[in-house]
């Protein structure tokens, strides 16, 4: 289990991470999301022991990262942001170095290195210097480094950044297949990736956790979750909307686009009303409408993301303005006394 206990990190006066606590069990894949500069990478650096927190601590499978750092670090695999690797080494030499540092020697060392090169599709560049690799390949080399020792805990900072769609898919599959016996934390800006891979999502903004949910529950927070979108051949939009509104259980109706041949509307149900799609359908058929398509919206993750993170940053903005104002008020008497002195 990876357990964060009240992690706070200041850079000078700036609070990059603000009392973050959560625990990740084996079998979980935690998606770590947030806008730029939210504090994702900083949190991951604290978890892996690269920078110490200003307050709080992290416990990795029973070992405290501050007091028992070496044992804790031995259990972690870490892919840092931007996938750093020694540019003057060949892929093989680099991974061989990592295998040795991870404690493999003799025959093990060779088999581990060969095996990971195979698993991460690096055979074609095995003897190429890392400085000559493309970005995606560099990313893969560093990813390979993080799983070479089959760690119990895996921390991945934007693991699919720079990969082509095929490789993205491949890496996601690898992560999912490893998940059963590992606790994995990965950060990403791709919401679909989080949805496809993760069993749980934490969104942070301005260093604070704003939500900790499963991807499905997150989706349910979307305003369009459960809404019904209909497409109907061109007709009188007002009449259609009136008809839809008359159905019991609809809260509001919104017309989306009026294309040349068809009319698209979205019906938002009252909370708690079920089988609304069926009611709409039977009503429309009764009224002799031809329904081109109908579907129930699952909700959009990017809507949820925007809603949650802008709320948080607005709060911070207000805080900031309040502080600035009170500072100005405090300085006011000084200004006045200065002005009084001036005529002398």
């Amino acid at each position: 289990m990876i357990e964060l206990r009240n992690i706070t990190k200041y850079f000078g006066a700036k609070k990059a991470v603000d009392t973050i606590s959560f625990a990740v069990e084996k079998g979980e894949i935690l998606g770590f999301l947030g806008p730029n500069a939210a504090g994702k990478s900083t949190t991951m650096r604290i978890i892996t022991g690269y920078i110490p927190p200003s307050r709080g601590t992290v416990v990795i499978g029973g070992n405290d990262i501050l007091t028992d750092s070496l044992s804790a670090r031995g259990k972690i695999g870490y892919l840092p942001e931007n996938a750093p690797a020694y540019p003057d080494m060949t892929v093989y030499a680099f991974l061989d170095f990592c295998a040795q540092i991870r404690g493999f020697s003799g025959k093990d060392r060779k088999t581990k290195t060969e095996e990971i090169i195979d698993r991460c599709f690096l055979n074609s560049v095995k003897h190429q210097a890392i400085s000559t690799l493309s970005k995606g390949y560099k990313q893969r080399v560093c990813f390979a480094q993080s799983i070479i020792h089959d760690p119990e805990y895996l921390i991945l900072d934007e693991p699919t950044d720079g990969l082509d769609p095929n490789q993205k898919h491949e890496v996601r599959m690898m992560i999912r297949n490893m998940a059963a016996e590992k606790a994995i934390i990965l950060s990403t800006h791709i919401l679909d990736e989080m949805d496809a891979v993760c069993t749980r999502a934490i969104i942070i903004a301005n260093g604070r956790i704003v939500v900790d949910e499963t991807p499905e529950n997150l989706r349910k927070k979307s305003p369009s979750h459960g809404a019904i979108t209909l497409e109907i051949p061109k007709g009188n939009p007002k009449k259609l909307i009136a008809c839809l509104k008359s159905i019991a259980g609809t809260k509001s109706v919104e017309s989306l686009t009026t294309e040349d041949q068809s009319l698209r509307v979205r019906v938002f149900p009252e909370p708690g009303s079920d089988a609304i799609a069926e009611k709409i359908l039977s009503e429309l058929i009764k009224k002799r409408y031809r329904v081109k398509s109908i579907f129930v919206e699952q909700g959009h993750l990017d809507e949820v993301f925007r809603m949650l993170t802008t709320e948080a940053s607005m709060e911070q903005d207000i805080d900031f303005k309040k502080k600035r104002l009170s500072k100005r008020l405090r300085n006011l008497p000084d200004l006045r006394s200065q002005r009084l002195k001036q005529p002398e």
Partner: protein
Amino acid sequence: MNMNQAKTITNITVILKRELGSYFGSPVAYVFIIVFLMLSGFFTFNISHFFEMGQADLRSFFQWHPWIYLFLVPAVSMRLWAEERRLGTMELLLTLPVTLPQVILGKFLAGWIFLGIALLLTFPLVITTLYLGNPDLGAIFCGYIGSFLMAGAYLSIGIMTSSMTRSQVISFILAVVICLFFILAGFSPVTRAFSGWAPLWLTDLVAQLSFLTHFASIERGVLDIRDILYFVSIIFFMLYTNATILENRKTS
């Protein structure tokens, strides 16, 4: 030997081998060795007139080492940490299950071995003295050991300044400045100027800090335990400072 010690030694050697590999993987290493050999030759033959002196010892060779090292050793050490910082590989390295002292020792020893190899390549000079006369081989051996120790002291200063910055150039300049201080503290024009007004004990104390003071008997081929202790403690102090700097970077 218990498990932990074995682990420590493997970690240090793995890091050492990687660093050595990256020295010899770049042309800079060969340029360094060539420049070092050329400078040693130039000073020994053209400035000190090795042949004309008609002495079968290497004093005129060792005597220039403090000055040659002043510029060459910081060039060897400047990349050790600065490059890791610039590339971001430091984040990788320091989250691996190795301790900071292990990494520092591995890096330091790699640089030291590299300098040792450069020093060993001056062996034709020893052969020349053998050809010229009947040199005291023990004195020459002591000279080499002493010079190697002093190179280590320069290197420890260089690795320490390298950990302060992500720029190799700044690391180089800082190292040269600090090493220059360690030379000048015992440089006779400076000590003479000093003794004009300062009390004797102070002049002595400052001179005792200097590489030159402690290298003086070594270049004659006398290896004193106090001089050895001096260079070893400089190395320890600088490597310790290096570790402190890196740890405090983390708390910033």
